[in-house]
């Protein structure tokens, strides 16, 4: 490996990163069906035997893919997601009362995450307002003659994300549809760890094309890539 200059002390190792992931924390993860989820950090959570986690992200992956690996081992006490259908183990744990699941419509969930990352308290939306399961227990309000649900913002103790390239400041670019929730999750963590395919020198990313400004990223670690078998393989 070429010695990387590390002027912002953000470039680190998986081992150091895992010191920030502890039992009982609220951890937000990037990815959609496992695409764009950080494989090294996920495996590290399992190796370190983490328990009682609250996980926030789009979905619970597949039993052997993405965050699904952590969920299907019963390491989460609660999940906030839009979908668990591709992970039957998550459904089973929920039915057995071993996993609490808070469902949020997908577009609402990601706006709640963005709101958290943007320093806002909540969003107003009409999605699910006529749906008793979505609207249950939520505040409603009228604004300019329209009815809205108040959907609270989401933040996390730690956010874990996956990106294609990072520079030493933590500026990030993503790869195609592996971007998905990552730029939003990146902003909503009180401590954000980016696992990346490639670390490039400062100044080599075009500022016009950076998707996540490095100010939102606290730690950058190199990835060995995905080690699970996709459903289509």
């Amino acid at each position, binding site marked *: 490996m070429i010695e990387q200059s590390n002027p912002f002390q953000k470039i680190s190792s998986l081992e150091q990163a895992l010191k920030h992931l502890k039992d009982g924390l609220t951890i937000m993860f990037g990815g959609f069906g496992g695409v764009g989820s950080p494989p090294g950090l996920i495996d590290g959570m399992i190796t370190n035997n983490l328990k009682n986690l609250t996980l926030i992200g789009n*979905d619970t992956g597949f039993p052997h893919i993405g965050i699904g690996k952590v969920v299907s081992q019963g390491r989460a006490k609660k999940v906030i997601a839009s*979908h668990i259908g591709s992970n039957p183990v998550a459904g089973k744990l929920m039915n057995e009362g071993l996993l609490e699941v808070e469902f949020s419509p*997908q577009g609402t969930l990601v*706006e709640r995450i963005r709101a958290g990352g943007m320093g806002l308290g909540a969003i107003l939306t009409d999605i699910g307002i006529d*749906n008793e399961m*979505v609207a249950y227990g939520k505040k409603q309000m009228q604004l300019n003659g329209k009815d809205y649900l108040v959907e609270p913002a989401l933040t996390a103790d730690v956010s874990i994300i996956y990106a294609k390239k990072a520079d030493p400041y933590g500026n990030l670019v993503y790869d*195609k549809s592996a*971007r998905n929730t990552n730029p939003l999750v990146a902003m909503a963590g009180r401590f954000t760890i980016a696992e990346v395919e490639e670390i490039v020198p400062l100044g080599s990313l075009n500022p016009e094309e950076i998707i996540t400004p490095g100010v939102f990223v606290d730690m950058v670690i190199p990835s060995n890539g995905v080690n699970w078998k996709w459903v289509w393989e």
Partner: protein
Amino acid sequence: MILDERNKMARRAAEEIADGMVVNLGIGIPSLVPNHLPSSMNVMFQAENGILGMGASPLSGKEDENLCNAGGYPVTIVPGASYFDSTTAFGMIRRGRVDVSILGSLQVSRQGDLANWIIPGKKIPGMGGAMELASKAKKLVVLMKHTDKAGKSKIVKECTLPLTSKGCVDLIITDLAVFQVVNKELFLIEHYSSTTVELIREKTDCNFLIGNNLKTIAY
């Protein structure tokens, strides 16, 4: 070409798509719809995981693990495509920029209520992006079998399953017929040549009106 049931439904759904439209397809039968569009047609297929401008499936061995549709399967892109994060994907949907959403369902009521996200006590997959697509796409087309595995009608007077969204369905395409929902009234507008209005009445668990210009589908 002799079409199987699923492709007959997909072909009929393809007729709802016009040049220049933005279209979102659900998983299952809706994913067959692009196969029935003329290649000259310019359609931007949207995936809620952050792609506008999806193309055909890649050849075996040419898959890119970071270029997948919302169902997690590899896709390609067409010229003019773009990638974006999940909030932008749903901004497009909520803002009404998606012309047609084609999805499957468990039940649809005669008023156009959609129930496709949960079977209490049995299957609780979560709604994913179905609520946004159902309530905000300009036109919502449901593709589903007319009856469930037990032979019970999936078109009903009132949905017994929890609703995804109320009064959102515009068109229902089943393996027997095509229905339109207009002002909370259900109209039979087309049926396949293999069936009759009497048979459709027998298999449908609610009343419906016959459209002015009832057609038989030729394929």
